[in-house]
């Protein structure tokens, strides 16, 4: 194998190969600073490499896409393939309870925290914290409670253009929307 062209720190390992290995192996999204350390690249150069990877992945023969959230990167399955292969990974990256709470927020976004808690019970406080931590939702103060709404990252994660796309074709009774 010819490795001649690679990176400053490791002549036999290219930056792209390191990024691919890191994002493949890590169970959590990898922070940009981590990738800078691993590859030994400057930020500008790293961005270029990430753009290259993004471009490579856009090829129809590739099954992954590069996802970015708050300067953290990970690979995800292209949405159009997920339904086909999802049975191979039984574990979702979210527990059932958290997902239900997220769904209530998404279908009603923006929605008052107390309304979410009313529907989902007290456990929802914990779920809401986790969802904010993961940048799926954001919270603004609204009188004595909080107003919750989904983030751009939520839309990216589900590859939605807007919430209407989610709500369309939903057979949920109107009073819950």
């Amino acid at each position, binding site marked *: 194998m010819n490795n001649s062209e690679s990176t400053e720190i490791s002549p036999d390992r290219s930056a792209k190969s390191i990024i691919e290995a890191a994002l*493949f*192996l*890590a*169970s959590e999204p990898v922070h940009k600073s981590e990738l800078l350390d691993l590859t030994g690249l400057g930020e500008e150069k790293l961005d270029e490499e990430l753009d290259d990877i993004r471009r490579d992945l856009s090829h129809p023969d590739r099954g992954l896409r590069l996802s970015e959230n708050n300067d953290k990167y990970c690979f*995800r*399955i292209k*949405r159009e393939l*997920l*339904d086909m292969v*999802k049975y191979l*990974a039984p*574990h*979702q*990256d*979210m*527990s*059932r*309870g958290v*997902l*239900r*709470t*997220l*769904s*209530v927020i*998404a*279908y009603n976004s923006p929605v008052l925290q107390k309304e979410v808690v009313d*529907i*989902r*019970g007290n*456990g929802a406080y914990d779920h809401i914290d986790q969802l904010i931590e993961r940048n799926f939702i954001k919270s603004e103060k609204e009188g004595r409670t909080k107003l919750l709404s989904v983030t751009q990252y939520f839309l990216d*994660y*589900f590859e*939605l253009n807007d919430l209407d796309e*989610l709500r369309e074709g*939903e057979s*949920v*009774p109107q009073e*819950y929307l």
Partner: protein
Amino acid sequence: MAEETEEEAEFAGREGSPVTVQDLTRPDWRERLDEYTYSTDPWDVSVTELASGFMRELDKIGGKNLKLSGRMVLTCAVLLRAKAERLGGRDQTDEQEELEEDLNTGFWGYEEFENDSYIPELELPLKRMSERAVTTDELSQAFSSAVEVYERREERLEEEEETPHSWGMDLESESNFQVKLQRLYRKVKQKLSRGKEVLFSSLLDRDTKEEKFEKFMELLHLQSEGKVRCKQERPFSEIKVELTEDEPPAEPKTESAQKDE
């Protein structure tokens, strides 16, 4: 309650192999308890007898085994919960499953040790965790489930409100429970007008397990609200109820007691 010998301190049960207090000292105590509670109706297990046996056992070892007392408390709690669930006659719902999902770690307490057996190390191959993103279909299903769970809970609350004698298990039905608390509080005050303290047994309307359970729950609530104080001089002896100092007993005339409410 029949006296038991130390050797016989065991869960009183109808069938299945009884579990002795001694068994709680063994590493596989949870397995034995699981097996026992699985095969035995929890109503057939007398927590009182079990606890008496435990106390004798504790005397014997001079109270030096803290793990054992922890297990005992947990065992009694599990049995009580099993009884309470039976009493409420509730089915396992999604909500409970969800709750258990959240709680399932550590419920039994956790002990990890290694006895002096030789344990070779397996070497794990380097594997990555594979978790996938949620699909929009799953998000939509989750929403339907959340709505279903919510509706079921609302229906249940309505049913419980419509059933006047549901033995105080309907804690969520706040207004119903508050009425019962007021009724009991009034009763305590009326009885106290004739003495310094009231016996728990005199507050019961019926001599059934359900009634005792219900009234005891209500008393605990009154105590936590600071209205009464419950005393028990010895374990398993009669519970005595008195008013807290800032809550004067009712006048003999019941009218004023009612006005109080």
